């Protein structure tokens, strides 16, 4: 196993994982141990902000796995992200207990408000963290499996697939807006108090969540990397480049597609679950198709089919978004729109992909 990783890891990958492990340790230290007066101190809000970026990076990684390596352009990956987020949100809601506005020991506030008498079945067991962790992975995976099973078996490909993934997240958006779905309707889930007994707002909890997000991003990267460098990954690439030919060679294309889609959805779900406690809210707008499309541009900016690039793209674009929406709010959509156009026109390989080409040229090798 270890030899497998060492054999297949280039310097970029090793550097990426090392960086992630490093910041998982250093950033919390700078936040918690270094005194506030020091120039090296990182304020808690920045820790949460960057934790959010890293959660997005994990989503981008998941998307790159299906789009970059298997050619499945999902415009609905935000749905899996949001499903994972809702699972975590439900756990956090149950942890509030009697501390809500209506002080009901079992029912979350919005249910009391809607005059519900008992907990819906969907909310059972969400007070146990183990069950919640299972659901975070299971719910997106099952949705992805059912959806992928139908879609890939009937050979829905290309733009058609993109459109129906978009419809999937749109349908979920509409569904979660409904109050009688029992997921908080329009307002979503918020006002969290505790996570596994630790107060969500506390700096130490936030630093831990940041470290966890960073670790999970590293783990997700290792898993994705392992998948794409293996034989399995080679078949994925051949499906991406010539699906019919791969099928004629005897491979069950749909099985590979469903598997990679499910793994990717599970990763997106985990990203959502890490995202929710750090931003403190989950609401149906996370399902909106534009969010999913925005995630696609993170991957495109960083470099499709590079994994590292997807993560970097997510962080870069979101950093730019925070900065632009803060200083020049009306410019953000122009900027994002231009990014979509310029990257597709002039930087089809993305930042990391293009850099790799440059590095290859400088070494005198052929640009693969």
């Amino acid at each position, binding site marked *: 196993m270890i030899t497998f990783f060492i054999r297949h890891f280039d310097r970029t990958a090793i550097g990426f994982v090392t960086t992630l492990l490093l910041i998982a340790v250093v950033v919390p230290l700078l936040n918690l141990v270094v005194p506030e007066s020091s120039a090296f101190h990182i304020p808690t809000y920045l820790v949460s902000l960057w934790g959010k970026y890293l959660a997005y990076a994990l989503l981008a990684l998941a998307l790159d796995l299906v789009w970059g390596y298997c050619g499945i*352009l999902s415009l609905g990956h935000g749905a899996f992200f949001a499903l994972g987020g809702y699972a975590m949100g439900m756990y956090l809601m149950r942890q509030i207990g009697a501390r809500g506005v209506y002080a009901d020991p079992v029912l979350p506030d919005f249910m009391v408000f809607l005059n519900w008498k008992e907990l819906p079945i969907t909310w059972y067991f969400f007070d146990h963290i183990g069950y919640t962790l299972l659901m975070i992975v299971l719910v997106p995976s099952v949705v992805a499996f059912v*959806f992928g099973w*139908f*879609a890939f*078996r*009937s*050979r*829905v*490909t*290309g*733009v*058609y697939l*993109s*459109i*129906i993934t*978009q*419809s*999937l997240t*749109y*349908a979920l958006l*509409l*569904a979660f*807006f*409904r109050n009688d779905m029992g997921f908080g309707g329009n307002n979503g889930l918020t006002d969290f108090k505790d996570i596994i007994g630790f107060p969500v707002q506390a700096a130490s909890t936030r630093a831990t969540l940041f470290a966890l997000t960073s670790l999970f991003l590293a783990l997700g990267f290792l898993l994705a990397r392992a998948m794409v460098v293996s034989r399995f990954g080679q078949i994925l690439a051949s499906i991406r480049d010539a699906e*019919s030919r791969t099928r004629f060679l005897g491979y069950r294309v749909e099985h590979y597609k469903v598997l990679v889609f499910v793994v990717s959805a599970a990763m997106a779900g985990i990203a959502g679950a890490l995202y929710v406690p750090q931003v403190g809210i989950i609401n149906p707008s996370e399902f909106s*198709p*534009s969010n999913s*499309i925005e995630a*696609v*541009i993170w991957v*495109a900016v960083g470099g499709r089919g590079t994994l590292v690039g997807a993560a970097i793209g997510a962080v870069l674009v979101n950093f730019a978004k925070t900065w632009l929406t803060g200083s020049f709010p*009306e410019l953000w*959509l*122009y900027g*994002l*729109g*231009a*990014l*979509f*156009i310029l*990257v*597709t*026109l002039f930087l*089809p390989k993305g930042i990391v992909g293009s850099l790799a080409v440059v590095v290859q040229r400088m070494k005198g090798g052929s640009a693969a």
Partner: protein
Amino acid sequence: MLRRLFVIFGLVVLLAGGAVRDSYADDATLTLKRLATDNYADIELGIAAVAASGLPSAEAVLNALADSRLSYRSADKALFFKDASGSWIDAATNTMPAEQPSGLKPVKVNNRVRRALEAALGSMTLMAADPQKRIAAAEAVFKSRDVNTLAALESVIAKEQDPVVKRHFEEARAAVLLLKVDAPESDRVAAAERLGERGDQDSLALLGAVSEANASANTVVAAKLAAKGISRRLALLSTVQNAWYGLSLGSVLLLAAIGLAITFGVMGIINMAHGEMVMLGAYTTFVVQEIIRTKAPGLFDWSLPIAIPLAFCVSALVGLLIERTIIRYLYGRPLETLLATWGVSLMLQQAVRSAFGANNREVGAPSYMSGVWDLNGFQITYGRLWIILFGLAVFVALLGVMKGTSLGLKMRAVIQNRRMAAAMGIRTPLVDALTFALGSGVAGIAGVALSQIDNVSPNLGQSYIIDSFLVVVFGGVGNLWGTLLGALSLGLANKFLEPIAGAVLGKIILLAVIILFIQRRPRGLFALKGRAVEQ
């Protein structure tokens, strides 16, 4: 001799007539004097007398009493009321007296008097000169089912000449009689039948109230029969109404999607900025209307016909610009085109937001777009009617372009097999550019229509884009008939699901069904057959 006789006879008649008129006037003053008192019970009786008197000033007097504008002179009990200008009018003659009266005492009103007044005024309007007012009065009686109005109803039914008004009177009488326990059975059965003919929700509720407890067996049977008839009719009506709404939604979807269908069919690309082309068309309408409002208000009814070609040009030009600067570099990479056009859509939205503000803009409806056409309970709003007709006209026009012009021929050739078409000498880049411009222009036209039924805001396009995609994908690529069928069936399905499942759930069900459908038939209803289709 004979002549003299005639003269005498004529004189007698004249005299008699005069006498009659005099006694009538006396009667009137007497009747009015009954109101000139402080005793509420007397006033109440007086009101009924005045209402039944048929005096020309009766309504004015009763209205004055209701507004506390009525007074009487203590000396001779003559009634006067204040008119709008504040001067006193003699109630007996309904004219302004030579000199303004003095020593007046107001006629007082309490709650019982007020109730009596309302009933009296209600039955008075049954005799109003304006048939619309008479109908309104009949409907008021239908709702109140006041037994006291029965006598008034009987008398007006006997006199009424207008068949429509008469029908309303009879329906009102039926409503009163149906639940009147002491009415003769034959009357109540007839009333049930009459209400069955009326056949609306109110009648159904009335008929439902008839039971063994308050009616004879025959009446109950008649009521049940009539109610059954009404239910059947109402069910049919709601089906027709739903079909109409569905048709209307379908034509909106058709308008929004048909341009997309062309570009998707010919170029195999998804234009995510298509919704923004629709939005540009809507904003063009807004600008045209603003200019007309300030420069030539008389032309307002022409604003839509003027906006249609302008919207086509604006959207087509923007489309051409997008095609020439972005899309032509991305042919053969449909997924990248999708992303790039999404970028375009974001920029267009923001541009419109910067230029016109983020709020909804008011686009007015010309006179012929407003109003309702009531077909026996089935309501057709002119706005929807025009949009359906417009949608069909655009469809037919595009069909004409596709089948009848040289560009259409080339477009169809490219849809079927791009490389073979190029080999035959068709300049495919030119066809692409023109197709994109045409598709965008049609979207602009759709925007003109949508500005009439939706909020004109920078997000207008966003709300249609997903539905438009589904229509195109459902209908099949490169086939206008498929788009028509897709749009209409989606519209109908939506509107028929709505009453069963609710608006949001209906939409979700529809999305789920389409997702499943695409998996059964990945190329839509009307899939192109042939080798070229498989990439």
